[in-house]
């Protein structure tokens, strides 16, 4: 049994610190001395672009022992289907976990893109299938399909993609897609189908995940909720005669001492303005169940950072500092490793970890935390594994 630990590429720029500052890496704030990718040299833009920084994060991740990295996709980010091939020849082992919404790509074209990227990268493509948060953001993408239909469409997309991948003359008549005698041609047809990580917390999502996911991916939630969720997913998957595994996406702040780790959190929390809290409500009016579950942790109403410590080494304020999940892990290296071991015991077979800044934190987590992981061997004697 293996566990795959991914890092993350910051596709919407970042600051060199976890504290809330204008992002100086990338061009999401004005070009000024001290910025990079692009930066300023002799008073002029230096000719680098943001993909040059992303290349460094990917290399840092692969050197430090991560299996690859998640490449997120949102209205304000650069695009994963361009980033991954751009970095394919500049990396050796890094797996490109491309996040994408099936509704935006023709499934046959997606199959061709995937097979070619497998060929260009030596088989390093992985999918993170996302189905969107609904609301205004969904309409911004030009997608008016409602929540449950979107998951139905995702399922049909994967049926068609797998059909043209595995068969040479595949036909399909469905609610969202039609194909007649389609199929990848050689040599693209010889490429491996990517592993599928699947995101979504609703019932509609779980139905589609049970049929298609290799890994069911969830944000970190309070452990009891997560245990229940994973059990539900595994039950539904096994009912279809399949097996899948579960993975967790979680930010970490790991430092040599617990005091330093919480010190980072305190400084970051105190650097927030009132506006910052409102800024990350980008799933207001959406239909994402996962976002609602994170919202219930109450980050926006906290007055002190301590109010958001929901359990030892678990802080629920990450969403205030950047969009995304609220709950993350804070502690010294041993504590962070221990929490990850607990999650492995709970049922996690994979992780997508992240920390800001993503370059330096890849080194830190790779060098100091990953070597401490013991997995299910961490259990005391006499305690059952699950």
């Amino acid at each position, binding site marked *: 049994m293996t566990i795959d630990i991914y890092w993350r590429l910051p596709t919407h720029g970042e600051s060199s610190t976890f504290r809330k500052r204008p992002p100086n890496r*990338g*061009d*999401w704030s004005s070009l000024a001395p001290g910025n990079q990718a692009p930066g300023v040299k002799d008073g002029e833009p230096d*000719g680098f*672009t*943001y*993909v040059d920084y992303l290349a460094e994060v990917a290399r840092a991740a692969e050197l430090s022992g991560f299996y690859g990295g998640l490449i997120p996709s949102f*209205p*304000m980010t*650069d*695009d994963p*289907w*361009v*980033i*991954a*091939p*751009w*970095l*394919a*020849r*500049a990396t050796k082992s890094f797996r490109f976990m491309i996040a994408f919404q099936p*509704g*935006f*790509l*023709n*499934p*046959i*074209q997606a199959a*061709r*893109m995937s*097979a*070619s*990227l497998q*060929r*260009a990268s*030596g088989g390093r493509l992985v999918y993170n299938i996302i189905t969107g948060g609904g609301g*205004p953001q969904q*309409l*911004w*993408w*030009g*997608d*008016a399909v409602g929540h449950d239909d979107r998951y139905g469409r995702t399922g049909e997309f994967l049926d*068609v993609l797998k059909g043209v991948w595995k068969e040479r003359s595949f036909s399909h008549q469905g609610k969202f*897609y*039609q*194909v*007649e*005698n*389609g*199929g990848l*041609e*050689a*040599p*693209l047809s*010889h490429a491996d189908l990517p592993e599928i990580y699947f995101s979504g917390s609703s019932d509609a999502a779980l139905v589609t995940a049970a049929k298609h996911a290799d890994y069911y991916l969830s944000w970190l939630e309070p452990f009891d909720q997560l245990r229940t969720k994973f059990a539900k997913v595994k039950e539904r998957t096994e009912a279809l005669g399949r097996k899948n595994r579960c993975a967790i996406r979680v930010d970490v702040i790991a430092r040599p001492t617990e005091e330093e780790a919480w010190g980072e959190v305190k400084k970051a929390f105190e650097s927030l303005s009132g506006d910052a809290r409102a800024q990350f409500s980008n799933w207001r009016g959406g239909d994402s169940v996962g976002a609602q579950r994170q919202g219930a942790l109450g980050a926006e109403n906290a007055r002190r950072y301590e109010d958001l410590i929901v359990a030892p080494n678990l802080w629920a304020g990450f969403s205030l500092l950047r969009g995304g999940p609220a709950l993350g892990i804070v502690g010294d290296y041993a504590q962070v490793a221990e929490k990850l071991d607990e999650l492995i015991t709970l049922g996690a077979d994979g992780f997508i970890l992240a920390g800001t800044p993503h370059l330096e934190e890849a080194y830190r987590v790779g060098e100091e935390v990953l070597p401490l992981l013991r997995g299910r061997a961490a259990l005391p004697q006499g305690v059952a594994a699950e």
Partner: protein
Amino acid sequence: MSNERSPLEFFWRLPSSGDIGHAGRGASLRRDWSPAARPAQASFIRDARDGHFDYYDYLAQVARGAELTGFHGLSIGDETSGEEPWIVASVLAAHARTLKILPSFSSAFATAVYAAKMSVSFQRFSHGRLGWHVETATDAETRRKQGDFIDAADIPARTEEFLTVAKGVWTETAFQYQGRFFGVENGGFAPPLAGQPWPEIHLSGQSDTELALSARHADVHLFAGQPIEVIRDSTTALDALARQEGRTVRHGIALRLLGRDSGDEAGTDAARQAARGAPDPDIIGSHGEIADRLAAYVDAGITRFVLTGNQHLEDVYRIGEHVLPAVHAHATARARSAA
């Protein structure tokens, strides 16, 4: 320095689905250098390649050849048995950093918003080198294999909507559109995604509808290799339509060439390639003869050439070194005498 004032641009169309190579072997050769595909060799010859190389290494060599010999860009065709154009585009944009990159794709490949989103990142990373060649197969069987079931008659309308919506989210904020094929509500990119150069739009086709579409939307109209008189008539018609729209559209042509030092050598190699099933070149001859034919197209109004061959690595160097300079010189002299 004779290329200084040439109005011409030359692109090389890459081998998306393989390359005939030297045409000497019985088995089909793709120049796919991965272990499973490359020609076998006796085991007593030490082969250092192991699993290190693949087809993208060959594409990179052809791309760099185009770059070294003075081409302006790379065209990546949309072939059903070939590598997917967007993936090739990104891999090669990172490698050949001074060339324009022109993937071909159908208006059915993605939503217009997503195509625009991908392209914005491409422009950001490449310093604005992306072109779009939007072309859709007209025969229903091919399109149905790709999941595209609209009537052939609807293709120009869908292409037009695709370009309209993509341009809308590219250049506006709070962009609203509800069409037959694409829609968007409150769309549009925020900085730093906003403000990127719009891709150079290439369209093709011979019909009145397609010429009219180019008049409204294309930066370049790519004609297939046809006789000079046909090209002259078509470009005249296109120019009239474009004038009505208050626009100018560049005239391009796609040509497959087989050039050698002498016409005889060209003929011999052409026969050898034909025996291997390679596609027929549009022009076969000495480099001088080829340059003369391209010069005639220049006189008929062509300023963009998308050239290709059957032996891509060698041909990009041959054409780049021995044909391009003469055609540039002809165009420059022509422009000077017209001034």
